[in-house]
């Protein structure tokens, strides 16, 4: 299956294309004329030094920011800008750099919120909590339980997430994003602030999500070792501009990338 997926990635079936996108906040240019694509089934990394525009790029992709110029083509449909609710309906889910969970709610309930977008019964049925609404709830619960099993977080099912250590909270957040059964999963620094063991666990889950569930993933990450190991292709940003794009080995040796990270002698 692995080889199959890899072949598909190489064949270049494009899931999303970002074409000549520019974004500025007043006089500050966050992103300047950036184009790249994300192929179906790949792990695509967006890297760059601090302030390179990575998170802005992610926010453009999922429609939180509206770029002044450029187009985004997702799943064959071109759009000037995504809106967050479009993004969600079309199957884009994300996690955040700072964990954004409902702290007082249990792991189970947090992941269940990821299913809200899939609920078909209206508020009336939901409140009545009978018949079709109940059947639907059970169906969603099954999906959520599979995710809990997948992420190996059975032991914290009923624990309020506010009481969990950071690494586990990140895992719950990934679970909530997976509950939306996205076709494109955006991960904003999934390993920030983690210790080595937590990073290893998270890397395994990201790979498993990609390989077993076939989910396309775009991720931002600072840990270069992790990025180079995980991703199929890497796009490098610096000061809002794209400076490199390609497979990890090519990017690693690109002089422009080395300069961006290590600085240029003046």
């Amino acid at each position, binding site marked *: 299956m692995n080889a199959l997926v890899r072949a598909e990635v190489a064949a270049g079936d494009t899931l999303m294309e970002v074409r000549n996108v520019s974004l500025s906040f007043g006089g500050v240019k966050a992103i300047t004329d950036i184009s790249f694509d994300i192929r179906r089934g790949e792990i695509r990394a967006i890297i760059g030094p601090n302030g390179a525009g990575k998170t802005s790029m992610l926010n453009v992709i999922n429609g939180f920011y509206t770029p002044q110029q450029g187009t985004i083509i997702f799943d064959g449909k071109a759009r000037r800008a995504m809106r967050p609710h479009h993004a969600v309906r079309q199957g884009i889910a994300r996690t955040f750099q700072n964990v954004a969970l409902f702290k007082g709610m249990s792991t189970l309930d947090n992941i269940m919120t990821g299913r809200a977008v899939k609920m078909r019964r209206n508020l009336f049925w939901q409140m009545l909590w009978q018949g079709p609404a109940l059947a639907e709830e059970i169906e969603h*619960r099954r999906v959520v*339980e*599979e995710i*809990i*099993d997948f992420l190996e977080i*059975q*032991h914290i*099912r009923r624990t309020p997430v506010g009481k969990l250590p950071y690494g586990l909270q990140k895992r719950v957040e990934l679970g909530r994003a997976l509950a939306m059964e996205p076709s494109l999963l955006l991960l904003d620094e999934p390993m920030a602030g983690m210790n080595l063991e937590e990073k290893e666990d998270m890397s395994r889950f990201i790979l*498993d999500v990609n*390989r077993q569930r076939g989910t396309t993933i775009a991720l931002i990450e600072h840990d270069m070792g992790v990025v180079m190991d995980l991703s199929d292709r890497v796009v490098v940003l610096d000061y809002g501009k794209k400076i490199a794009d390609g497979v990890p080995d090519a990017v690693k040796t690109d002089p422009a990338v080395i300069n961006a990270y290590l600085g240029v002698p003046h």
Partner: protein
Amino acid sequence: MAAEATAGDGGLDTFPKYLLLNARRFGDLPAMRHKDLGIWQSWTWAQQLEEIRRFALGLTSLGLREGDRVAIIGSNRPRLYWAVTAAQSLGAVPVPVYADAVPDEMAYVLDHAGVRLAVVQDQEQVDKILGQRHRIPRLELVIYDEPRGLADYKESMIRDFAEVQASGEAALAADPTLAGRWEEGIRAGSAEAISVMLYTSGTTGRSKGVMIPAAGAVQAARDTVAFDRLTERDSVLAYLPLAWVGDHYLNYAQGMVAGFCVNCPESSDTVANDLREIAPAFYFAPPRVFEQLLTRVTIRMEDAGRFKRWLYRRYIDVARRHGEAILEGRPVRLMARLDYALGHFLIYAPLLNVLGLSNIRVAYTAGEAIGQDLFSFFRSLGINLKQLYGQTEAFLYVTCQQDGAVRADAVGPAAPGVQLRLSETGEVQFRSPGQFAGYFEQPEASAAAMTEDGYVKTGDAGFFDSGGQLRIVDRAKDVGRLNDGSLFAPKYIENMLKFFPNIKESVAFGDQRDFVTAFLNIDLTAVGNWAERNAIAYASYQELAGHPKVYEMLAAHVRETNRRLASEPMMAGAQIRRFLVLHKELDPDDGELTRTQKVRRAFVAERYAPLVEALYNDSTEQFIETEVTYEDGRRGRIAATVRIADVEAVPAQAVAA
């Protein structure tokens, strides 16, 4: 009841025969539950028979033959238990292997047992085996329960459990007489056959394969099921290592004979919660688990409000005074009884409910000595907690305590059907129904473990006390003498130290020395909590272990231990004069503990030779660097300078007066 149902049925001498019987007599009762996807999935005895049959027929079509060995590796999961019965039903011998064994240990056992087939839990075990396959030439096939992560594997020697069952199903569809022939095969099963081969935990050297004959195993299980009146309406939580005789006996063997329901937890992290949901009738836990339960309760109570703390203390005190007497049916004043009843309503019942111990009828502990306070605590809450003493070679039971004759410092009289005696040197020897048939392919070792008249040597030194109960002092070969001639029983001293909640592990030295010294390991939960309360900052285990305040506290514990030793004429000479707190936890991955968490004293002494040296010269600290193994098998080194503390001895007469 189970024992009655079997009375007229003389031919019940293997576990698969019980499977057929149970499917008939308890067809609709649950035999197995497993929490999966958040729900307790369950199988009745009839369904379980079906599952086992499909798997067994699948194994037949894979060419498994009578006498072959089948390794079973993983945590407690229905399919692994089924694999045990399926193998037995074909006359093959199941060999459960510790799932947390490192690849080297596992390869040794698999090769030594000459397994043709391994049924394993998941990718982790598959990887371990594939990585060592050159050392296991006779292994042909690995069957896995959990397919996750294995979809990409191109190996021809691995197979999905479901696939094997499906091939069994297909074979049955092609030839419907197969089912009947399989059952015929079970009925023809020999009582002499080896029911299971259990590898010892390897306290001394490489582990040995203990062969348990079928008829003896069934008889032993029948005896204890009758002794503790277990029935098909009971349930147990199977959370102990599958490869350990305790799990195989208490859950598998007793479950087959009594027909009770075996419940498999969702994962090893959810055991506490699963225990609470199942609320078993029969429960076994080593003393350290009870200790953890008590520590957890104590810590939580310290966080409770003032009124609750007062209420808790008041009624735990009532329980301490009258609980055990009420449990044992001794006369107790009416007012005390009423007070206890109120305490039950307010504190004990809710507490037991939280711990998952509400329905306990019989609970056992064994493996290590248990502290009087700890033992009494649980008994005073109304739990019928008893002690047993057992061995893999006996198929568990050697002694066990009768209801009403229970004490913390002894392990009870001989279990039903067991003959027990002491040799001239004080070694405990027994003959039991479940007694092993020898170590696999180690005739010299087997011969060495037996006396000429057919008793098994336990290697434990003990004596019978005035009540006729056996008391275990130590391993016979570990009992030594100080240079002044006084008796030195290291385990006895270590256990005394470990009764303090702050001390997790200890290792005592003193044989052929001038005085006794000890290594201590702090209990991170207890000491960490204490540090938090006393505003002691620390960044690591190592720093906390070396903290002067921790040393002060532990010195007080050691003094108290000396006081207790001084009160026993036999032991008064072996008081601890110097000790140190180790900078790392003793760990089975480093070979310092066995897989059943027992200290390997000789190994520890060798590994930390400079520290032992320093305990016996005048140094106040000593530098040490050791290699450690991480959970994933990688190695690293840690270094530390360990401080050594002196403690004064208590004169023997001071306490006696």
